[in-house]
């Protein structure tokens, strides 16, 4: 099983919600496992596929800005299970037309398969990186923020319930593998959209937040169209904005293969 939190915020466009589903939270509070499981299903595996244009603005403490722009295609292999991502870079110029392909595996024993296509060399490379807690394209988002963190990696505890939110505290089962001590996720009680994540270091000091800055309903699905990471340690900040969001576009399986890695499909270029 896979989590949602980060992934849901980052891949905000993949946040289709159970439109007609009457939230059952109003009367009684579900147990924490139900909350995280539901948020996982709701946030990550609704809709069979989706696409979006992503603009990332990384602002350093000194105010220097760097821009990343890419189109992203997502397709679920099995509901609640494996997924495939196709990321086509448009900016900056030195990575233009570069393609990043991920076959995400929910089986813990299996690392994700990742490829990188370098157009200048016509080279298809396999990426050997297995550490998911490293930066994604130099931003304040980590790879795991993009591909999702497994629910099984943490223990979950409902620490607060307000009118609008459930606040869940997540403690890593294997603290050696991560840089944080724990993190809290605030989940909208009606929609199960994670609206804020707060990361605390090993000493219990808050050092990073990820916030859903803007949520829109697209094709009936509440969608995070802007999320912001603030790194309080480094003073760096990354804004991620989604546009041209579309769900259920009927992406072919073959898009996520070497054929399209070498020559991106129309869906990814436009």
């Amino acid at each position, binding site marked *: 099983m896979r989590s949602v939190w980060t992934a849901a915020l980052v891949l905000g466009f993949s946040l289709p919600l159970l439109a007609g589903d009457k939230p059952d939270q109003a009367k009684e509070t579900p147990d924490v496992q139900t909350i995280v499981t539901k948020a996982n299903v709701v946030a990550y595996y609704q809709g069979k596929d989706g696409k979006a244009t992503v603009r990332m603005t990384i602002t350093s403490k000194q105010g220097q800005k760097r821009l990343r722009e890419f189109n992203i295609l997502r397709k679920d292999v099995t509901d609640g299970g494996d997924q495939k991502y196709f990321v086509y870079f448009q900016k900056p110029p030195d990575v233009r037309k570069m393609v990043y392909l991920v076959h995400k595996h929910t089986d813990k024993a299996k690392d994700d398969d990742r490829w990188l296509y370098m157009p200048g060399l016509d080279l298809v490379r396999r990426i050997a990186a297995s550490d998911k807690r490293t930066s994604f394209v*130099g931003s304040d988002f980590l790879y795991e923020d993009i591909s999702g963190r497994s629910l099984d990696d943490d223990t979950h505890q409902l620490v607060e319930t307000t009118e609008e939110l459930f606040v869940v505290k997540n403690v890593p089962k294997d603290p050696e593998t991560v840089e944080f001590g724990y993190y809290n996720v605030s989940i909208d009680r009606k929609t199960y959209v994670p609206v804020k994540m707060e990361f605390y270091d090993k000493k219990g000091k808050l050092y990073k937040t990820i916030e859903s800055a803007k949520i829109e309903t697209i094709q009936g699905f509440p969608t995070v169209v802007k999320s912001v990471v603030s790194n309080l340690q480094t003073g760096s900040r990354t804004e991620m904005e989604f546009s041209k969001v579309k769900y259920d576009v009927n992406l072919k399986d073959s898009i996520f293969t070497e054929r399209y890695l070498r020559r991106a499909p129309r869906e990814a270029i436009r």
Partner: protein
Amino acid sequence: MISSSVIKTFLVISAATVVMLPAAVTASQEDAEESFLSNLPVEIHGFYEMRDGYRLRKDKYEKDMSIMENRFQLDLYSYLDWGDIRFKGDAYGDLVTEKGYFDMREANVFLRPLDYMDFKAGRQILTWGTGDLIFINDLFPKDWQSFFIGRDTEYLKAPSDAAKVSLFSDWANLDIAYTPRFDHDRFISGERISYWNSNLARLAGQDAIIHTDKPNEWFRDSEIAGRLYKNIENYELAFYSYHGYWKSPGGQTATMTQAIFPDLNVYGTSLRGSVGKGIGNAELGYYESGDDQSGRNALVNNSEMRYLIGYAQEIGKDLTMGVQYYLEQMLDYGRYKNSLASGPTRDEYRHLTTVRLTKLLMNQNLRCSLFTYYSPSDKDVYMRPNVNYKVSDNLTVEAGANVFFGDNPHTFFGQFQNNTNIYTGLRYSF
């Protein structure tokens, strides 16, 4: 003294830069969606680059400067309803050869005529195989000169004038690349890299530039390369075949005045996939030297077997390491030895290992890498350290070196000892 053609080229490049840059900068700005340029059906990109480098040792056959060029690349790309058109060309002025050049890197049309077929025709860069800076079944042209003098690694791949058809099915996929007229490597000719000249039995360079007699007729002197491949649970299995010529000179004429490109057929296979925490790859190829099948002809390369095994893994935060072991086995070695009149002989087995270390720092804007070739049998080394920093989204600066050493002057990398160089580069991309 600088010839007028260089000055002209510099002027042209500078003028083009002045004309292109403002437009390009506009195109790359944030509000580009609204700009006139972005509404054209053509995407315009490219870069302007300065690159300077010097030899660290005195080389009596070559100049002290190893690279000294200004380069302007223009990359035009248009996707239309029926297909894509690509044009990418470099204009550069080179103070080492004192000439101006235009290097057309790509000029091609890409079509997806059928659900199961892709087609690309024209000048294009072609790559396949699993090695990291070692090529067995990739017999598309390489530019070893650019590689050794410190141009961007991208320039290791020289373009092919070819048509490539790709067919896809659930059973397997097939690529066929047909090159109607042989495209050889941009090999070490002595023009700007000194080398071991076996006829002279000494190092040589500009005093003994290699002249070639190359297969040059359209359609008769063609090359054909095929790859049959399949992804099985993300293990990539491939079979290769090539019919053409040794890509760099693989022999010489009977009068020993010209280097030749004898017939070559290659058959091989490769496998790549995840192994443990990293990626493993294995590849082999049988090089059948068509013009010297018996191995008795001292003037033509013998047949060979080539083997490669590699593994890459992340070993620290933003730190990856890749290692490879490569073996080149000369077939019919006894006959080769008997056929030689004099001079140092090649070993039957050439062992080669490589190690690549790449570390990303400063939010991945600084990349430090070191690629090392080491041959225990040739007792020589080639190191490629490089530091690359992205000053901004458009501006990159880098510095690096090409370091050769060896015990003998005639071995693969040892012969290039005097070409050891350092370089710096600055690139503005748009």
